[in-house]
């Protein structure tokens, strides 16, 4: 019997998810022995045309990491979807946009302006910007189209499983591979993480959620035994799925929300904002104003990993006149 086929792809990604797969260390050889890796740009030499040549549904499992922010990534996502039986949104970027989705606070024009014109290390006196089609002597050069808005994977294709995390922890990766190998995958649409939030597995002591001041992580050294939120540090644990093994908490740093919103929550940032402000012990306007000034970047703090999947999704440009096009 033929070995099952696995593909891995990275879209708008930092490469960390691929490194996480490699972090399985010697078990990577087990994976290689039970399955055929038919496409994995970072490690193996297959090309797009190899995938295009495959029949639909030939790939048994596709682990797709990275967000989608240009036309090439969108095209390959759709291609791999067609060729795969099971599509997994691997990592926070593929699941809900991740860090790249923070670019939704800007747009293509602003990004290009900054990257190609403004940035001090540029030597671009002519102000050349990337074009999708460029004529050169040898013919035509194609560059992918750069979108204004970053999407997560299931906003473009159907996804069977979601593996959150930045990156997903090694033990969860191994669990998935194991389940796949033994044919015991969970129901489609599942998120491979805890259904409860980080607070459920956090072993710090929780006493009373009443804070009078917010500290940024560099301002104090928190007590490693007490709940971080109770010490005034914004920890997104209450609004984030558990299952990561508390890797940030154990380093005495607050959770940043990379496992995404818990089951049933449609907007992680809104819930975190509501939970945080509900713990404020403040009645006077001045106190509330001070607490407000202590949260320096609400959008970035609350939507650090889930911007693409949030309700508003991106920053609005200035409103257009009614009737104008």
């Amino acid at each position, binding site marked *: 019997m033929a070995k099952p086929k696995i593909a891995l792809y990275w879209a708008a990604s930092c490469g960390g998810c691929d490194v996480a797969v490699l972090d399985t260390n010697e078990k990577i050889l087990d994976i290689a022995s039970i399955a055929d890796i038919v496409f994995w740009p970072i490690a193996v030499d297959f090309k797009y045309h190899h995938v295009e040549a495959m029949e639909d549904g030939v790939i048994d499992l596709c682990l797709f990491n990275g967000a989608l922010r240009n036309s090439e990534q969108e095209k390959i996502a759709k291609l791999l979807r067609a060729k795969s039986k099971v599509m997994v949104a691997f990592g926070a970027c593929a699941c809900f946009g991740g860090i790249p989705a923070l670019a939704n606070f800007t747009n293509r024009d602003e990004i290009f302006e900054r990257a190609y014109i403004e940035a001090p290390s540029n030597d671009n006196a002519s102000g050349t910007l990337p074009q999708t089609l460029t004529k050169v002597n040898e013919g035509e050069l194609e560059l992918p189209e750069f979108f204004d*808005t970053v999407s997560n994977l299931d906003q473009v294709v159907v996804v069977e499983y979601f593996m959150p995390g930045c990156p997903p922890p090694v033990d969860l990766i191994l669990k998935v591979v194991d389940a796949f190998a033994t044919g015991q995958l969970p129901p489609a649409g599942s998120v491979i993480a805890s259904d409860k939030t980080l607070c459920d597995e956090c072993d710090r002591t929780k006493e009373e959620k009443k804070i009078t001041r917010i500290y940024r992580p560099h301002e104090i050294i928190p007590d490693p035994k007490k709940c971080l939120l109770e010490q005034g540090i914004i920890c997104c644990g209450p609004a984030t799925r558990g299952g990561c093994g508390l890797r940030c908490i154990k380093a005495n740093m607050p959770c940043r929300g990379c496992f995404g919103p818990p089951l049933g929550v449609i907007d992680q940032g809104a819930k975190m904002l*509501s939970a945080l402000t509900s713990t404020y012990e403040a009645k006077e306007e001045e106190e509330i104003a001070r607490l407000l000034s202590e949260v320096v970047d609400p959008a970035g703090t609350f939507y650090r990993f889930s911007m693409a999947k949030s309700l*508003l999704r*991106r920053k609005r440009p200035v*409103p257009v006149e009614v009737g104008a096009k």
Partner: protein
Amino acid sequence: MSRHFEPRIVGFLCNWCAYGGADLAGTSRLQYPTNVDIIRVMCSGRVDPTFVLKAFQLGADGVLICGCHPGDCHYSEGNYKTARRVPILIKLLEQFGIEPQRLRLEWVSASEGDRFAALVNEMTEQIREMGPFNRNGGGENG
């Protein structure tokens, strides 16, 4: 700016004070614009920031949250909770390019029918001046 633009404002009114005040405006036959669609909640503290974001996502031009005056909340302190949530929400919305005037938190008691009518009038005109919320400015690639 816009002459025929009718703002669509979603109002979250608490059952005991604000809704009573709006009711009183009605029974007193006070004239006020129909631009606010009222959704009744038991207490302004029930208003989840998710509701506000959902309203803007679906294209509301403004959101109005009305509760009891501080100290008068039927549930003792619900309005204080709202008062703590809304300022950061406004700051967040600004980061999303939504003008701070589009989200308003006001205190209206059950006997202040005229105040409610004046408030709706004022907010409607203000948002009319500002123009519609760019409901299609999100999520399109390109």
